[in-house]
């Protein structure tokens, strides 16, 4: 209960300091608008923010080891902060680079890019490179089994590590570092293929429904409504149950079924969006002018409608990719997605999850599952940052 008391005391102290801060600010700057019009909540916010900053910095500089026992909390915190700052600097340099080098078009793009979007683009590029060139980058194969299993990450032989396996090996004896790299190829590659399929099917049907209208639109939209009435993950799990039986019967890889199932479920969302976008464009006068000319369907779709739909479609592609990627990772984590021995981040998290329990006294060990899960999170965050920027740009909101 003492922590509650402490919390209340801190809140009271912050309130008092905030009031003093605003008062002094008004006095010493002769009532400049910044202080004069400052509501109390804002003053409180500033002081509270400062307190958090001070607490974080002091925690950062606590000793890493106390009497030979590593203080895991400090170690993890430091890693997190270093990672954050590292990424911020990398994004800044990347944006600087992009503003100086390239064609006039890309330079203009980079000039308008906020730091978060630059970070996003950088990460996406890195992942793309790793997933395409996985074979050349990874030191070992993804299925290669070595005699020495359960080697600890860190490469320190005294702690149980092995310099040959910088991130250690799992229970079966496979190199975690190589599997992480191949995981990029597998998870990201499969997710990308699935999204493309969903987009192709959902997008064309959506546009068709928008242009043709009538009973085709009605039938498709009702069907999509029903399919969307079942939550996506649940539906996927249901269908994967059926598929797993069929997969054994027919001898077809379960992964193929998964791709088809997720593509179908996701195409419903793409259908909704492309239909809405299509409808917005189809009511424009220039479409009517083209129709009255006697233009055919093909010309209408490719020359008049599609060029005006690229912005929202591109943003939706990003969002859909994130969703598909997370669904595949979750399915694999639950054990019904990508099957072993293919290296996949979701499955890796599941397999390595118990290592987290050792975090308190052997922080290095706990990194393995966190790295796999983090790899998933990082890509999704990056794509979301970029999509966020694209949507912000196209909506033209005056902030």
């Amino acid at each position, binding site marked *: 209960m003492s922590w509650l008391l402490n919390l209340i005391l801190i809140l009271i102290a912050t309130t008092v300091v905030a009031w003093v801060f605003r008062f002094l600010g008004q006095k010493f700057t002769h009532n400049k608008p910044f202080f004069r019009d400052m509501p109390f909540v804002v003053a409180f*916010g500033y002081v509270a923010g400062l307190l958090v900053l001070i607490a974080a910095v002091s925690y950062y500089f606590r000793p890493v080891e106390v009497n030979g026992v590593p203080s895991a909390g400090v170690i993890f915190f430091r890693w997190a902060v270093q990672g954050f700052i590292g990424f911020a600097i990398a994004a800044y340099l990347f944006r600087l680079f992009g503003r100086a080098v390239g064609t006039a078009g890309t330079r203009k793009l980079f000039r308008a890019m906020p730091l978060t979007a630059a970070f996003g683009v950088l990460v996406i590029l890195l992942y793309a490179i790793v997933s395409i060139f996985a074979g050349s980058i990874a030191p070992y194969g993804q299925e290669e089994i070595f005699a020495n299993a359960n080697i600890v990450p860190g490469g320190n032989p005294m702690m149980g590590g092995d310099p040959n396996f910088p991130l250690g090996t799992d229970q079966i004896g496979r190199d975690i570092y190589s599997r992480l790299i191949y995981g990029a190829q597998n998870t990201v590659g499969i997710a990308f293929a699935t999204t493309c399929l969903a987009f192709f099917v959902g997008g064309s049907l959506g546009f068709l429904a928008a242009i043709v209208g009538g009973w085709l639109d009605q039938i498709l939209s009702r069907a999509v409504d029903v399919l969307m009435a079942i939550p996506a993950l649940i539906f996927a799990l*249901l269908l994967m149950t059926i598929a797993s039986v069929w997969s054994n019967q027919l001898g077809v890889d379960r992964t193929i079924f998964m791709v088809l199932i997720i593509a179908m479920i996701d195409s419903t969302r793409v259908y909704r969006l492309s239909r809405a976008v299509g409808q917005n464009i189809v009511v424009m006068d220039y479409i009517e002018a083209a129709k009255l000319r006697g233009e055919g369907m093909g010309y209408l779709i490719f020359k008049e409608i599609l060029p005006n739909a690229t912005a929202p479609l591109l943003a939706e592609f990003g969002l859909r990719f994130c969703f598909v990627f997370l669904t595949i990772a979750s399915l694999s984590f639950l054990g019904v997605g990508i099957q072993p021995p293919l290296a996949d981040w979701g499955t890796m998290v599941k397999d390595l999850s118990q290592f987290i329990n050792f975090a308190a006294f052997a922080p290095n060990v706990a990194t393995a599952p966190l790295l796999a899960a*983090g790899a998933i999170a990082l890509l999704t965050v990056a794509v979301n940052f970029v999509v966020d920027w694209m949507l912000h740009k196209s909506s033209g909101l005056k902030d």
Partner: protein
Amino acid sequence: MGSIFQIILQRLVLGILTLLIVSVVIFVAVNALPGDFAQAILGQGATEEAVAQIRADLGLDQNYFMRYFSWLANVLTGNLGISFAQMNFASNMGGDQLVGVVEQIAPRFKATMFLAGVTAMFAVPISITLGVLAALYRNSIFDRAVNITTLSSISSPEFFLAYILILVLAVLNPIFPSLSNVYEGMALGEKLNRTMLPALTLTLVVTAHMMRMTRAAIINLLASPYIEMARLKGIKPMRVIVRHALPNALAPIINVIALNLAYLITGVVVVEVVFVYPGIGQLFVDSVKIRDIPVVQACCLIFAAAYILLNLMADILSILSNPRLRHPK
């Protein structure tokens, strides 16, 4: 008032219709199994009686229509069948104390509702407050920080957030247990203690979504001409928000809450698996892995029904809170 009743009635009917059609979809999906699936599922240890029982129970001797209607009739009277695992277990062990799927699911369902309730209790007030503050102080450092945090939160898979929370709150600082094995009859305090981590994980995800949607809705609202008019009348800012913005914000915010509670249903599955929480989500996943069809079917139906119900409520509540519909011309 007549027309508003009509609209709500229309939506209700539509919702029920959707549920019926969804049940057909689930039925069709399940019946797309290959003919000898009973054998395939039960594997080597399948006994003759178990297989025959399954065939009889699922009415595989009747044609599709009869099968569907008898299944539907059963569902509506509360009989969701018997799980395969149960059947096999019982026939192997020679007992006839078959526990129906309904009895299996009921306690799990209650547990999941408890988890969802605790989550909602945290998530709703936090996300609305944060959303409103972020909208009011748009583009301040606070808003930008909140934006980045929530974006990262909704982008991360639930198991990532779960493991981070386990790391910080269970392993490094043993505040909460990392395994949430609650059971019926446990004291409320202990129950809450064990439910806290999964609830916090879910809160992180759901709050992020709700906060962003609330912020967007309020920003949209604050750009309305009537808000500008209120300011130009010299009304105090707090009063502008409370009397002018809030009544019109009710509809979009309620919509946001209902939609996100519906989203909660999906998130619950992964979180229950990570924390081994005995809810319906974990039951669903386990049944999927052992291909226990009746349980999978039943869970699917329950999830879909809850999802449809929540979407329906969101729809109806937003109609009710639209002043133009409440006071027709």
